[in-house]
């Protein structure tokens, strides 16, 4: 069915045909025709944000919590440039979002018009792909292709820049199935020869470990299911990156916890000493590998990734498999079962005995004593008191983020949204709103630091306007905790600009926004305060005053290997050499 309609109407029609139910956006001159169409329909809900960066993070949170494509609508110029951080964040973490930007009319492009920016130029390097639509007839095709590109292969953000005259002009609409998409079709099936080679390695491995990442989550819940089956059937230990938490349940007995710079001792030691490393949908990020030339030196390495450019980018691997995690895992299981479900059980038992010794170190131990709340204790209590709930967690960026990853357990995928690759302070609050919009009845908590939280706190207005009962759990140490920690370790305890002065009274701030504020500074009151937050029917800003100088451990210092972890304060003196200090 093709129909004549304006470009603006096409945009809304295409969104509906793509199954979009929610758009996060902010109006402005160059998108008014589209907003006029949104006004005249009921199928798509529009969430009015307070800043375009917030819109993109909300769309990211929405996308991560649902597995669908998140959608933003912003205006030209500043609307588009404000979206850049969110786009970069989504690109780094492979989150499928479509950002629609208004643009000045085609005949004014290049004239330095009011609110004109070279949006496709600016966003070329922070999108998977982008389009400037100069003709209304091209709009349906580009809209549908945008969704296709965002969601297929390695997912990512795309942007469609639509000049105002293209929105006003009339053209012929085409539905998704009438549009011939471009050649873009990434390979999803893995090479069977390579898969068989990996199965052979699995059969022989003495000290194997699965190292999984966000690719498992992006591949869909089916992939997580297959991963669980594979892990439980082989009995191999499994660790995960920050982005992959929840793919394998934290309560599973094969679970080693997160690996990497602030990962668990047992996970990092297993990575260092293993003889078979199976990377499933992770990308050997520098937070994971530590010193490259000392990374997992004794292992044969397999890498399953849908993006060929991820393979051999950082770490040379022996068995590369390009394909979608779900498809490859399915084939792996098939081949492994057909060959008789073999593993080296004797060696595995020894390997597990070694792992148990590492576990016994209890690297996350801390002592809650004295009158001040330890951040770890706050998260331990949050975990205990929210465990049974239909719970989603977002975070900001810094120490609290690492503690959340260490102390909160995730049983299912799509329950954990954090800015991993880009490390965007200000991500968590808007992301929590995006998650809550997708799951109105769930308990959505943003574990935050006070400094990160302030970066996008204007979005509390959005939460209240749209009745999103998000809980802002702020671990307030009045410091930029991670910056402070690095200054302590690397810069002679000269704490240059790493404290938060002139902080607002968060309870009064909550009241000013029209929601509930809770303040807690006594460990004895903490449980009651957390229960009050959970039970309150509406958004809450929870100001949890914590120990100001607590450092996040374990830690692999910059330029060090996995087996050179710091487990606590006593280990920290002079550990990072000059070479390590230039690394971030």
């Amino acid at each position, binding site marked *: 069915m093709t129909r004549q309609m304006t470009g603006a109407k096409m945009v809304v029609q295409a969104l509906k045909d793509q199954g979009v139910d929610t758009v996060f956006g902010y109006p402005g001159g160059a998108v008014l025709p589209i907003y006029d169409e949104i006004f005249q329909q009921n199928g798509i809900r529009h969430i009015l944000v307070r800043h375009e960066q917030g819109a993109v993070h909300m769309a990211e949170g929405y996308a991560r919590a649902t597995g669908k494509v998140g959608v933003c609508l912003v205006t030209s110029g500043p609307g588009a440039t404000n979206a850049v951080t969110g786009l970069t964040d989504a690109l780094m973490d492979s989150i499928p979002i479509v950002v629609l930007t208004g643009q000045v009319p085609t005949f004014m492009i290049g004239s330095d018009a009011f609110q004109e920016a070279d949006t496709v130029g600016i966003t070329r390097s922070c999108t998977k792909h982008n389009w400037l639509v100069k003709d209304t007839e091209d709009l349906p095709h580009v809209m549908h292709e945008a969704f296709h590109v965002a969601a297929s292969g390695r997912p990512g953000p795309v942007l469609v820049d639509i000049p105002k005259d293209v929105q006003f002009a009339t053209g012929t609409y085409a539905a998704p199935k009438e549009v011939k998409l471009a050649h873009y079709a990434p390979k999803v099936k893995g090479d069977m020869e390579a898969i068989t080679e990996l199965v052979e390695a699995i059969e022989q491995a003495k000290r194997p470990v699965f190292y999984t990442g966000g690719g498992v989550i992006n591949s869909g819940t089916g992939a997580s299911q297959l991963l669980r089956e594979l892990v439980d059937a082989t009995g191999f230990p499994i660790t995960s990156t920050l982005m992959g938490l929840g793919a394998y349940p934290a309560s599973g007995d094969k679970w080693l916890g997160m690996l990497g710079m602030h990962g668990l001792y047992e996970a990092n030691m297993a990575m260092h000493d293993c003889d078979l490393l199976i990377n499933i949908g992770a990308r050997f990020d520098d937070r994971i590998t530590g010193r490259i030339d000392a990374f997992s030196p004794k292992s044969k390495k397999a890498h399953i990734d849908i*993006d*060929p*450019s991820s*393979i051999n980018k950082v770490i*040379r691997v022996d068995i*590369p498999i390009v394909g979608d995690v779900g498809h490859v895992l399915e084939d792996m299981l098939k081949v492994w079962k057909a060959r008789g479900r073999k593993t080296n059980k004797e060696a595995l038992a020894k390997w597990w005995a070694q792992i148990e010794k590492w576990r016994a170190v209890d690297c996350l131990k801390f002592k809650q004593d004295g009158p001040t709340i330890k951040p770890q204790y706050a998260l331990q209590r949050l975990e205990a008191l929210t465990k049974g709930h239909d719970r989603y967690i977002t975070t900001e960026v810094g120490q609290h983020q690492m503690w959340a990853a260490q102390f909160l357990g995730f049983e299912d995928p799509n329950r954990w949204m954090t800015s991993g690759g880009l490390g965007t302070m200000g991500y968590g609050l808007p992301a929590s709103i995006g998650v809550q919009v997708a799951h109105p009845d769930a308990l959505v908590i943003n574990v935050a630091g006070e400094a990160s939280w302030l970066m996008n706190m204007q979005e509390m207005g959005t939460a209240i306007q749209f009745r999103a009962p998000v809980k802002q759990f702020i671990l307030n140490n009045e410091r930029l905790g991670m910056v402070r920690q690095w200054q302590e370790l690397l810069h002679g305890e000269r704490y240059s600009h790493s404290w938060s002065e002139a902080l607002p009274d968060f309870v009064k701030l909550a009241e000013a926004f029209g929601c509930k504020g809770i303040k807690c500074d006594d460990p004895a009151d903490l449980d009651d305060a957390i229960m009050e937050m959970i039970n309150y029917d509406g958004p809450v800003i929870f100001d949890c005053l914590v120990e100001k100088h607590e450092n996040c451990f374990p830690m692999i210092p910059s330029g060090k290997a996995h087996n050179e972890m710091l487990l606590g304060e006593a280990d920290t003196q002079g550990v990072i050499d000059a070479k390590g200090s230039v690394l971030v």
Partner: protein
Amino acid sequence: MSPLHIKKGSNSHSAYNLRPTFSDVQEKHTLAVLVDNEAGVLARVIGLFSARGYNIESLTVAEVDHVGGLSRITVVTTGTPQVIEQIKAQLGRIVPVHDVHDLTVEGPSVERELALLKVAGEGEKRVEALRLADIFRANVVDSTLHSFVFEITGTPEKIDAFADLMRPLGLLEVARTGVAALSRGTA
């Protein structure tokens, strides 16, 4: 570590055609990149090289299939084998890129470049320039009583050699097209 298994018959978008990437030797490769001829596609390709710190030694672009709307970008780049593989993989995932061919490793290929050289001189130098142009099969495409413009086609090395010879004879300006390359035979 054991060397990579190299699978036969894999296409340019797969990782299986990776050669062992242990060498730190800088290699020069000629890549042919087939792209949709759409606005901004060249910026995407060049932006990739600058953003990731790769080298471009030579670059040529033109539409080669008007009906299909395809352009061919020929880029000469240098890097270690690992970097070259990364460049190809990164190029391959740009949405409007159809195919990436590494002409340096995919069998024999021919490379040609065209250059225009303006040489000004009098007397014996002028005669010598003409004589050398004849040896190099360069054509005279413009002539005044005091200057020539030569047109020369050949490998980049041949053009370098010709330019070197013209320098003492009054070389004023050089314009080069960059390398165009095709695989030999029917491949």
